[in-house]
């Protein structure tokens, strides 16, 4: 019962926030992220585009966000939404030299 009443406002909020949220594109190129650090707002997404002729992985085990996008080849991209404020360290498990700091603010 409760679910039914909550469903609409939740979906609505999600819609509004996704309309306001920005998408930041980060490239993986030359075995590095195209930027070393990134400032985003809560609800923004970051899209990781692999521009190298080999596979990269993207993961984070940070307090505000834990994810593992697996590995994918050149030309493909995957997106992550940062839904909590704080700092996240995003890495490539295959190439530990690849590190990106994401600062998520309200």
């Amino acid at each position, binding site marked *: 019962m409760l679910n039914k009443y909550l469903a609409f406002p939740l979906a609505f909020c999600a819609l509004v926030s996704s309309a306001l949220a920005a998408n930041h594109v980060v490239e993986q190129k030359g075995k590095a992220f195209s930027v070393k650090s990134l400032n985003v707002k809560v609800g923004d997404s970051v899209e990781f585009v692999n521009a190298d*002729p080999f596979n990269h992985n993207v993961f984070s085990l940070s307090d505000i966000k834990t994810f593992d996008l697996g590995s994918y080849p050149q030309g493909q991209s995957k997106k992550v939404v940062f839904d909590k404020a704080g700092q996240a360290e995003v890495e490539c498990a295959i*190439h530990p030299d690849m590190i990106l700091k994401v600062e998520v603010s309200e």
Partner: protein
Amino acid sequence: MNKLKNILTACAIAVAGSVGAAGPAELLAHADDMTWLLPGVPYPTENAPTPERVELGKKLFFDPRLSADNSVSCATCHNPVLGWADGRATAKSIQGKDLQRASPTIVNAAFNSIQMWDGRKKSLEDQAMGPMESMVEMAMNLNRLFAWLKSDADYAAAFAAAYPGEAIDDKTVSKAIASFERTVISNNSPFDRWLRGDANAMSASQIRGFRLFTDENKGNCAVCHQAPNFTDNGFHNLGLPSYGAPEPDVGRYAIKPIAVLKGAFKTPTLREVARTAPYFHDGSAKSLMEVVEHYNKGGVVRKDISPEMRELGLSQQEMQDIVAFMQALTSPQINLALPELPY
């Protein structure tokens, strides 16, 4: 006799002809091959190498008294006459205990941004105390070690000269060993000389091997064994047969539990590789040809295998060329004066 001479002449002409057909330009290094030339050796600002530091590190590296029963030094498993490895499939140590993995070479380890097969150590400084503490390697009681180094007049003087005003402890011991390791460098192989403009430093087969090595549609080796030190400092599962065991060595995954790291090990340098058989972290390949055959099959155990691994379809000749190229990565032995150990 005359007939033989004629045949030999014909052969010589044929060989010369085939080289000529390739064209002299194809035998020369291109501008974009220069990414393979090694830069100067990097070092941390707090441990710039000096002759005193290198000399002290060399003593420590070769001194078996750094182990519990005076039987094992770093050089036992990283032996200069065996390409700074040990020639064994997996390492053997104090009182004959077997280690699970092969001893890697320490040649050009100075260029690694991460150390060990599973990357559990960051730098050479980080790594150096590990073997002494490890019960299966040198099993040394460190308090006893530092007390002995301090009580020995020669060692005390060597530490004072290398690190004036600093204590004799884990920091200075590891900094000295790391400084010595930064002198164990291979950068004068036929390949290096070829890159620097000596067109005859590599044979035609070795040059073909280099092109196959870097060609994404052929050997595809450089996707992981990247310029300049033949490593991406990255981790990959090559589908070795041992990964099919019921409880295989999971490698990097034990350090970082991310799915792509299951059974993944660090890409080793290939400089001096001809001197360090057998190959792989489990010592399972006896020769460079066996290694290339493994890649040509696209690996054996497909579970968790790296997406860069695929059947290559290389001919026997192409595989031989790649092996010949790896044999061109051997520098002349460095001129290593024996260290004067305090006694």
